[in-house]
């Protein structure tokens, strides 16, 4: 126990927590925005992969780091547009369309990587974002600007959702699209916009992996992290502030397991620690299930004049 306490005193530990939390915050906000508008986005896992690849490829070909972030956002938005066309436009099953997007985005990214680099064994690297050591804040000055972006987006999205007419429109089309239509809100346009913007955030979440956490693109580097965002949104009861809390809590346990695993004298096999994030996600889902209040129109396609 003492070990854990000394660990909690170390700033490096909290630096790790914030670093692990950053892509989860971005991804969870993205999923949250889609679901608030009534669309489940199971493309998130694939969009992370595509964002990680696109951001890295752009920078590798000479774009500035922020250009890489933009490229990742653009690729995410494109995937979101496809998902919106299938689910909002054509009213296909959101489950299946989302999984299809994940498969397609992952396959295209891997294919593109292999076409661009047919015979490399060690992945080519880029110079990633540097920590913001000019910042006069302790832990945060060890993080990259993308962490600041993620943290800043939380109040921005909360303000946007609860304090602006556009946010009201997004929430309405996710709760009661018929009523929204009656108010003159273009339901399908709002849903499409939310899915595109949310997916762009997921793309940036992926880009964090290649542009800040690591400096290269690996196969299987996302490895289920994207799905965890879907669980975190339920845990957060679709509120941006709670999403931040959930992502931090989650990253806390993840950083803890990393340290315990590294300390080396663990009686448990290392796989048990690696399981923790996934087990925690399921536990979080079960714990909040009783009072989870899904957006009422989530997964329900909307067609004009139909009830």
């Amino acid at each position: 126990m003492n070990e854990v306490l000394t660990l909690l005193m170390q700033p490096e530990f909290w630096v790790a927590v914030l670093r692990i939390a950053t892509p989860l915050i971005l991804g969870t906000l993205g999923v949250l925005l889609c679901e608030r508008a009534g669309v489940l986005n199971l493309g998130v896992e694939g969009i992370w992969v595509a964002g990680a690849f696109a951001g890295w490829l752009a920078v590798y070909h000479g774009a500035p780091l922020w250009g890489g972030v933009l490229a990742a956002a653009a690729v995410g938005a494109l995937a979101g547009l496809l998902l919106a066309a299938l689910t909002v436009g054509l009213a296909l099953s959101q489950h299946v369309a989302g999984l299809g997007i994940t498969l397609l985005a992952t396959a295209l990214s891997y294919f593109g990587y292999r076409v661009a680099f047919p015979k490399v064994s060690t992945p080519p690297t880029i110079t990633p974002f540097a920590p913001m050591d000019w910042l006069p804040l302790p832990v945060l000055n060890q993080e990259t600007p993308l962490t600041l972006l993620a943290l800043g987006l939380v109040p921005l999205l909360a303000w946007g959702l609860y304090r602006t007419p556009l946010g009201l429109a997004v929430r309405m089309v996710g709760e009661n699209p018929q009523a929204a239509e009656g108010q003159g809100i273009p339901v399908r346009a709002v849903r499409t916009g939310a899915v595109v913007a949310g997916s762009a955030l997921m793309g940036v979440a992926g880009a964090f992996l290649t542009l800040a956490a690591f400096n290269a693109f690996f196969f299987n580097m996302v490895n289920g992290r994207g799905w965890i965002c879907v669980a975190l949104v339920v845990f957060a009861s679709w509120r941006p502030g709670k999403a931040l809390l959930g992502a931090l809590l989650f990253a806390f346990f993840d950083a803890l397991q990393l340290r315990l695993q590294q300390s080396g004298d663990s009686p448990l096999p290392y796989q048990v620690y690696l399981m923790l994030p996934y087990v925690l996600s399921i536990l979080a889902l079960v714990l909040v299930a009783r009072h989870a209040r899904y957006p009422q129109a989530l997964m329900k396609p909307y067609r004009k004049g139909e009830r």
Partner: protein
Amino acid sequence: MRLEPRATPSARALLLAPLAAVAFTLLIASALVAWAGAPVGTTWGLLLQGGFGSVFAWSETLTRAVPLMLTGLAAAVAFQARLFNIGAEGQLYLGALAAVAVGGLHDGTGFALPPYVLFPLMMAAAALAGGLLLLGPALLKARLGVDEVVTTLLLNFIVALFIGAMLDGPMKDPLAMGWPQSVALQPELELAKLIPQTRVHTGLLWALVLAGVLWAVMRRTVLGFQIRAVGANARAAAFAGVPVQRTVVWVALLSGALAGLAGAIEVAGRTSYLTLDLSPGYGYSGIVIAMLAGLHPLGVVVASIFVAGVLVGADSMSRAVGVPTYLADVIVATALLSVLVAALAARYRLVWRATS
């Protein structure tokens, strides 16, 4: 612009829709082949030849189709009841682990039972392991409303790590030179080869029989009717006296068991021991196959042979012209999305008017 349901979907449209989807997929994939700098026609020729061009190609394709059929059936039966089982990958691995635990030698201390007792035990254990793994998420959905898509997905990662821990620890083969690999099955428990000198094994017959059985269950039994009723409209089904929760439990056991058997049959038919790369994502491909087949058990047979042929053909095509094998995954994913759209187009018509 809006969609209007057709009074009766025309038979021609229903038949043409999948063909149009395949054509669209070929177009997209051809563009990618051209981008990779390979001659498009030659590449397709090589892919076709590698998947279906010889007895050997067919034997490889059918070998690969066996686990795909079983995970495809697993997804099809679950999706019929709107239980979105995305966890077939985990169920497959847990089934394989159960099979090895029952049928492995455990350095000579294994069960001293004759093979004709041990073999059914092994298959039953695999089916049960897969079924029970899906039962948890199914009950969480039925009782607490926890979305099964996320829970089954996350369980895949948990199972993969659990298998890794077992293959590193208690179930590791001491003779495997340090590789994380389980002990081998007793040789009498392995499935016989269908064609000598190839890898295709009697597991193919198992998969075909199970597809037939599942078709009969769905079409001819009360349970099949209840499954379809729950899938069509759970509330209406409950109102009509269908025991919804019990049906969901049966669907979960059935679907998980099929995926678990896929793992056991892979071990018994192909590898004889369990490693962490037993499945290159058969669980996820099963979902695509079920959708391509329109959730029809017999369609699953055809769709899994198609997908297996693409995967096998892409391997040999890649060796010959250097187009990455991931092309196969792009083809499969594009086929999934375009078949969904095509199926919709057959049932609806586009109306180019503002509002009626």
